[in-house]
């Protein structure tokens, strides 16, 4: 009566599997590149991303200005690096907030009384029934363009989805025999949620949330593109893209400089997230 039990911890196996996937490695490299650029922006570029220099307007990419300059003569490489800080910090902060709220609401809906579940579902459906852009436009009307507005939009967009996932799994687990067993032993609701349900629902959600980071980056860039996100002169990829769009016929490099980091970051996080999910939870493969 014995079962072969492997001694290697699960995460070490997972890292090993990740490193064997070319796409995963590419994802890791892209993410490291973008994160590194954002963190070390001050060392990587000597230019101030907000300093206006009328003499240097619309310069094409050169050894001096790797990505050229924009209509106000600002160095685009510096703006892209500093824009990465905005994009990544918004992504991390709003994802963390969405996760926290989503988990709490999902557990409430899944484990709480029926009426609360129905009420929360109706709320989620109503929020989801606004197309993201409409939600953003309406919110900006209310608060004015700001990073806070971006974070609120992201949270509103993400929470219903996260809460629904947690709710569905909680509902399923609530009927599972091990939860019933815990109840039959007299475990309190708090203990059932904390010890028996939470550990089983959080893992998949965190992986899903990490895969949503490209969406969050897209929302920030999109809102800044429309002038609803960060205010000028703060650098943001979306804002650079908008500058470039205005002058697309004559100076296409500005649009390219704004779009490229968005493409690389979203691709990097997606490749990484996809591989991570396959590695940690093979059951979800290909979903």
């Amino acid at each position, binding site marked *: 009566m014995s079962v072969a039990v492997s001694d290697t911890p699960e995460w070490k196996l997972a890292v090993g599997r990740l490193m064997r996937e070319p796409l995963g490695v590419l994802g890791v490299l892209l993410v490291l590149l973008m994160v590194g650029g954002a963190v070390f922006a001050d060392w990587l570029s000597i230019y101030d991303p907000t300093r206006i220099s009328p003499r240097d307007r619309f310069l094409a990419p050169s050894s001096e200005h790797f990505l050229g300059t924009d209509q106000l003569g600002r160095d685009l490489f510096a703006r892209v690096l500093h824009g990465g800080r905005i994009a990544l910090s918004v992504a991390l902060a709003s994802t963390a907030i969405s996760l926290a709220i989503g988990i709490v609401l999902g557990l409430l809906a899944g484990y709480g009384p029926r009426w609360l579940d129905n009420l929360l579902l109706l709320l989620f459906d109503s929020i989801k*029934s606004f197309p993201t852009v409409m939600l953003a436009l309406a919110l900006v009307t209310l608060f004015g363009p700001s990073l806070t507005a971006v974070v609120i939009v992201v949270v509103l967009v993400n929470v219903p989805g996260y809460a629904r996932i947690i709710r569905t799994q909680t509902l399923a687990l609530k009927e599972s025999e091990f939860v019933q067993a815990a109840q039959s032993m007299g475990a309190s609701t708090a203990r059932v949620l904390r010890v028996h349900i939470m550990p089983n629902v959080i893992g998949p959600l965190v992986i899903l949330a990490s895969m949503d980071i490209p969406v969050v980056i897209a929302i920030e860039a999109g809102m800044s593109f429309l002038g609803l996100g960060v205010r000028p002169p703060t650098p943001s990829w979306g804002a650079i893209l908008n500058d470039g769009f205005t002058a697309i016929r004559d100076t296409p490099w500005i649009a390219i400089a704004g779009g490229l980091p968005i493409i690389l970051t979203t691709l990097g996080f997606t490749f990484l997230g996809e591989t991570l999910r396959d590695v940690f939870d093979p059951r979800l493969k290909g979903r």
Partner: protein
Amino acid sequence: MLSYTLKRLGLAVLIVSLAMLLLFSMIYLIPGDPAAVALGPRATDAMREALRVKMGLDQPVWVQFWNFFSGAWTGDLGREVLSDRPVSQVVMEQLPYTLVLIAGGISWSVALGIPLGCWAAVQRGSWADRIVGLLSVAVIAVPSFVIAIYALLVFAVTLQWLPAIGAGEAGNIGDQLLHLILPSLAVGLGWVGYIARMVRASMLEVLEAQHIRTARAFGLPERMITYRYALTIAILPTVTLLGVGIGQMLSSAVFAEIVFNRPGVGRLVYDAILTRNYPLVTGAVLVTTVLFVLLNLVADLIVGALDPRVRSRF
């Protein structure tokens, strides 16, 4: 089926009502007096007061809400501030352009996504499968407005293959279709990826099912198993997903309309916000929301019609 339809319809009405409440409270909460904001700093007190009365802002909140609510259900969305035309009329003028754009996006995503996903699933693990998977992930990840701008840059500005600006000459269908290609591709490309992945995943799941094994044990031809036995089931989640997809395409449409300078509801709202034309903002947002809820409803009903299990559950 009747009970199912009624239940779905009831839910849709409830959601639209809630959306109205949210929109109303949003407008009500906007800092500053909407009338003053709309008229700008040079207006006199008397002008502001007149506009306030006209917009019904002098009445108690609940009366204002009731007016908004009952008006909205009967199609009266008030009048817009700048030209004093009925909001519903302005929105309805722009709506067809957006609908055509989204229909274009859906056409791309269904016409390319379903065959690609099915094809990848049937030869899972092959190079074709991997390439389809990689491309799907890539087009999902990259935001639609970046695709729009790069497409504009490459195909319209640099190569000059396709027209870039506007919706095309009125009455000239060919020209309009030509103008639709780039914007609809920008709107639908990400969804080609979504649908390909979704169809692939659910095909793989269905192909593992016991009844497929049974069908194989009866020696049915592989083509019949793939298309008649598996795809009919695998397609169901895709239809539901498309309902959600329409909402995201509405978002992408806003960007596409701005980038390609097309008329449409998205552009309308965007311009209305810049000019603080609030009745137009609420009206247009409400119309798109109702549209979205309706299309979701249609998607649900289609699933109900396709799946005998759902049909009989209600």
